[in-house]
């Protein structure tokens, strides 16, 4: 028997309106330790698929398997252990960070939410160093740092529970070249150390080809059925 995939999406259809789903019949696998790049034009529904894979959005139909086990519940209803297997980083750091939390608390929040308070000082210091945040930045709130610095904190937050699968949804689309390279390097360091899998969603072939072991195009994922942008595009992704 071949190695069991870490993540497997089978014929997933999902969206915000049942009559016009953003994702139709999408299938995709990520093997343990593998880095998969999902390429697609903006507005095609790939962010919705990323949310399904992160257990944040319940699909209308289809199956999601994590470690071979089918996922039956989503969001709060999903078992906590299953939810925290997947770490997720979104495109816009401003919207992904609670504006009231200092960066330290932002990074530590998942530890506190899962009752691992005692790990906070060590893990935060370790991850801040890994993503290149200096101690003086950790004491600031989101509106006092730049987009790049905030995205570093969001990546640290995604890694703080040591997920076995990391989903990066257009993580670097808003960032400059150097910050992009730094964030990708931080993700790769983490994957080398832990053997975690990666699903990187984006539209930049050059970046994803360089970053990932394997890239798949949206049209191939949704195999034949057109999920790609019909002209009056549904603003589904965000």
């Amino acid at each position, binding site marked *: 028997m071949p190695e069991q995939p870490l993540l497997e999406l089978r014929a997933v259809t999902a969206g915000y309106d049942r009559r016009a789903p953003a994702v139709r019949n999408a299938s995709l696998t990520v093997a343990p330790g593998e880095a998969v790049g999902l390429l697609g034009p903006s507005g095609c529904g790939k962010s919705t698929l990323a949310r399904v894979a992160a*257990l944040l959005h319940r699909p209308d139909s289809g199956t999601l398997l994590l470690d071979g086990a089918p996922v039956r519940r989503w969001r*709060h209803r999903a078992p906590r252990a299953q939810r*925290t297997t997947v770490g997720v980083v979104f495109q816009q750091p401003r919207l992904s960070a609670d*504006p009231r939390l200092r960066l330290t608390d932002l990074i530590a929040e*998942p530890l506190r939410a899962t009752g691992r308070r005692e790990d906070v000082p060590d893990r935060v210091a370790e991850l801040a160093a890994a993503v290149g945040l200096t101690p003086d930045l950790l004491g600031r709130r989101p509106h006092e740092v730049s987009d790049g610095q905030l995205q570093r904190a969001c990546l640290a937050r*995604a890694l703080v529970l040591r997920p076995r699968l990391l989903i990066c949804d257009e993580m670097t689309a808003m960032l400059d070249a150097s910050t992009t390279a730094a964030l990708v390097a931080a993700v790769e360091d983490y994957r080398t150390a832990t053997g975690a899998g990666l699903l990187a969603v984006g539209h930049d072939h050059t970046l994803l080809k360089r970053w990932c072991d394997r890239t798949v195009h949206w049209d191939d994922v949704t195999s034949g059925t057109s999920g790609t942008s019909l002209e009056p595009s549904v603003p589904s992704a965000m």
Partner: protein
Amino acid sequence: MTCDAPAAEAGTGSTPWRSYGTKRRSTRTVRVRVSAALVAVTVLAVLLVPPLAQLDQQAVDLAAELQPPSWAHPFGTDDLGRDLLLRCVYGLRVSLLVGLVAALVATVIGTAVGAAAGALGGWADRCVMRVVDTLSSVPHLLLGIFIVALFRPGVVPVAVSVAATHWLSTARIVRAEVLSLRSRPYIDAAVSGGASRWRVAVRHLLPAVLPQAALAAVLMVPHAMWHESALSFLGLGLPAHMASLGNLVQSARSSLLAGQWWPTLFPGLFIIVPTLAIAGLAGAWRERINPRRRSELML
């Protein structure tokens, strides 16, 4: 590019720095300062005058009834010869107390209901909001009169009746805010980080709506004062002997027809001026809590 030493760096004084938009800011500052001063005077008067003044606001002096403003009685006297300045301060004290209690209770109910409806969504949300819609369709004052009529006149029934009719708008505001926040990626990130429904509500949603709810509460204080005055004016609110602003205006009605303006004017001013001052402060606060303004530095 020139090779000249950069002129701009040294900063202090040496370069002609030009400023922007100072004028608009100053008028706003004046408004805030005036409002703050008025609120401060109101609060001080209400807190300090009753314990410090040796005079009895209920002291009846029939020999001095309905005297126009003078040095002895700056606001004049009422139809029983009582000093109107003192009566107004006592009246404001009662009205402010009713307003504060009612606003506080209404905000707590409204925030709890609105946050629960918004956070739970689905059927719970729909049911709660239909109840809110139904209650909102009944005129406030009518509902208030109904509630007051069930009890003996006093401060508590009036506060309850105002609170019970005014949590609806807060519930709406809070629910709308929660609904817009619920779809933010940072809530997704919290869920993905293992946060429970309760933790998301208490740690991420509630703190985000509190400034809005608090603002609604502050704006509700003058509104509740108006309601108290209206109920008292109709003779349904506080007992007639109690110096509330509504009672003062009510009892001055007859003398107004006889050309005595002061027993109506001064209590009326005591209703209007604190209302405007509180609204002015709340408006400035609303601008400050808008996070978009705070991050105007464009970095």
